[in-house]
């Protein structure tokens, strides 16, 4: 069992999300940083989709009542397991009674606590992700709070005795230079209705993530994006990544918990392969949009897949070698 000793609001159980229920008005949800989730699961020899605890606000601490494989991924928050300091993005066997503490992050925004076999909560509509709006999924459809007890899907270990870790995904999937978070964007259907100046501003200016940002979407500040003339749109489907521009001209990127419908004009869409980069952007961080083609977007997905497979193959090999060294 995993007992939550302390947590700020908004920690919750997430997997890669709920796919296939848009027509019923059920959005995707799922981890904001799907790469961190996938890497944690790969280190633990879990299903890539296994559920973890997403922790957006630190500190956070849990106690393990049984031995369990864990991986702490994503935000680089000083992490301690008992009296042992853990490096970033690290998987290790926690012993019964040990306390895991995640402190304020030095970089990044969301930490993920993955466990052997995944967090064992019931699947709802094909996913264990918490759907706050609908109050289902995860642990009783709600955020975690002090005293909650969760269990891991697997008790036995699949880790080398001293654990193992993974280097930063950004090093393997670099994009852009400088301090800003770069994401690739496909022009969306109303792109052509925006002014030339707005087009230039979209691609060339720095955008700042404002405090009005959460799992539903990030409101950005920077330039004002204007249309040649106002349009009235019927409500239409909205997917994570869509950049809407309300009348005020400040764009909003729709994210994991976005509503499935919306009526604002869309200037672009952050490509699927880059959404995880936004998952680690926090208020005050700079964003840059890089124009991409449809083919670029597909290629980017392939690159992510190739990267994850190479990590999986190497982790499997090291797991096998380590088992061989002590057999």
């Amino acid at each position, binding site marked *: 069992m995993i007992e939550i000793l302390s947590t700020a609001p908004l920690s919750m159980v997430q997997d890669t999300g709920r796919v296939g229920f848009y027509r019923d008005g059920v959005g995707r949800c799922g981890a904001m940083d799907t790469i961190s989730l996938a890497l944690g699961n790969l280190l633990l020899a879990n299903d890539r989709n296994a559920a973890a605890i997403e922790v957006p606000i630190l500190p956070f601490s849990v106690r393990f009542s049984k031995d369990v494989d864990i991986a702490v991924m994503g935000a680089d928050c000083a992490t301690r397991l008992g009296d042992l300091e853990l490096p970033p993005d690290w998987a290790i066997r926690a012993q019964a009674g040990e306390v895991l503490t995640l402190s304020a992050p030095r970089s990044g925004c969301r930490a993920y606590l993955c466990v052997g076999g995944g967090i064992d909560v019931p699947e709802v509509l094909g996913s264990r992700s918490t759907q706050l709006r609908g109050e289902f999924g995860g642990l009783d459809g709600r955020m975690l709070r002090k005293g909650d007890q969760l269990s891991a899907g697997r008790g036995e270990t699949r880790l080398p005795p001293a654990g193992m870790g993974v280097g930063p995904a950004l090093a393997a999937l670099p994009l852009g230079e400088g301090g800003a978070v770069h994401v690739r964007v496909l022009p969306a259907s109303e792109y052509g209705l925006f002014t030339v100046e707005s087009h230039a501003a979209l691609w060339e200016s720095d955008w700042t993530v404002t405090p009005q940002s959460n799992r539903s979407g990030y409101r950005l500040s920077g330039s004002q994006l204007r249309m040649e003339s106002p349009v009235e749109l019927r409500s239409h489907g909205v997917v994570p990544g869509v950049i809407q521009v309300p009348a005020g001209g400040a764009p909003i990127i729709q994210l994991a918990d976005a509503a499935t419908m919306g009526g604002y004009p869309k200037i672009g869409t952050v490509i699927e392969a880059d959404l995880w980069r936004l998952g680690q952007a926090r208020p005050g961080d700079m964003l840059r949009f890089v124009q991409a083609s449809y083919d670029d977007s597909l290629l980017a997905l392939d690159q992510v897949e190739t990267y994850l497979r190479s990590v999986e*193959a190497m982790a*499997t*090999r*090291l*797991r*096998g*070698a380590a*088992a*061989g*060294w*002590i*057999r």
Partner: protein
Amino acid sequence: MFDTLLIANRGEIALRIQRAAKGLGLRTVCVYSQADAGAPYLEIADEAICIGPAPARNSYLNVDAIVLAALQTGAGAIHPGYGFLSENAEFVDTIQAAGLTFVGPSAKCIRTMGDKVAAKRAMIAAGVPCVPGPDSALPADIASIKAVADEIGYPVILKAAGGGGGRGMRVVRSGDELAAAAALTREEAQRFFNNPDIYIEKFLQNPRHVEIQVLCDAHGTALWLGDRDCSMQRRHQKVIEEAPAPGIDRSLITEVGERCANACRQIGYVGAGTFEFLYEDGEFYFIEMNTRVQVEHPVTEMVTGIDIVTLQIQVAMGLPLTLSQSDIVTHGHSIECRINAEDPYSFLPSPGTVTGMVLPAGEGVRLDTHIRSGYTIPSQYDSMIAKLIVHGEDRQEALVRMRAALAAFEVQGIVTNIALQADLMRDGGFVAGGVNIHYLEHWLTARSAQSGAAA
């Protein structure tokens, strides 16, 4: 194509493979266990990396550690040598999944030949002569087993489908022993080879062990490189090997050799391999195929002039064999004595430090060894420290040369079987040629009886 070869083995074969690789201009990477740190053959490697603790299961049998070492050192191919992982199909799968080349046949061929029932079926299909008995695993009910045994005629031998190398077999001399023997063999088969299937064959009383060396490329060329006689065995371990096998009709060998090459074409075999046969009363009976280079490959190299290990690597590079069957001519006779660090009477291993060595030399003498003065033989592995190989115009000359070479060969600081080999080279039966696979065991029993009587 690759430019760096990793050698996943130790001892003399690690040196032998390196020589071949360097001759082809390849970089070599040697992996070693903590017990082999400082071994002389590591010095000539372009890179050497420790892959784990001394026990073979932690190091030389650690598939993932070896593949990891290959990836880390930029090796494009892995040569398994003999023993260890050389006939492990999962090893081949893991190597190929990592995008690397295995110097040897496909995992599928290894699996087929590793399952003795499947291997026999493939051989029958290719026209290779097999020991009388069905080409399928035995059914569970004893009445059916009895019927099969009666048809073959006693004595019969029960064998584990997953076995090999003399392990997992039991001779049955009459029908009333059959039920108990089948149950026991089946249980052992499950326990030792993780496959409860057993099969039944006619038990040959006094066969010789004669084998055919093959070499095949990835372009459909399959050659057989002559035969070897390895009947001098102790506890299924070969002690002396020679080529060609003395006193067997050459036209019969040719016929069997052609069938072996044909079998290779049929199963898509690539690389070096050996078809092992029992030979009795002028007939060959297939027992198993070794899907790797063998310890005794040098005797074939000596009589054919073909560098088997070099060609094995070239074939793995995808190069076609430029030889044709008519180019393969055997010349003279070759004998190999395995030199082991063991007591020549008790056969207890004698690990320790070699304090001095006098090496045999001379016309037609070849010594494949990884040891030198100051080398400490680890206790964890096989006790073979050298292979002494001679070549002569005929068997008589080879024997003379081997006697002289053994007399000159000294390894100080440890106990070896050199003196035993010298005795065997003068033994009337061996000198006459054509002894069977029980000969050496009987010889050793007689010797201990004699020394017991003398004492």
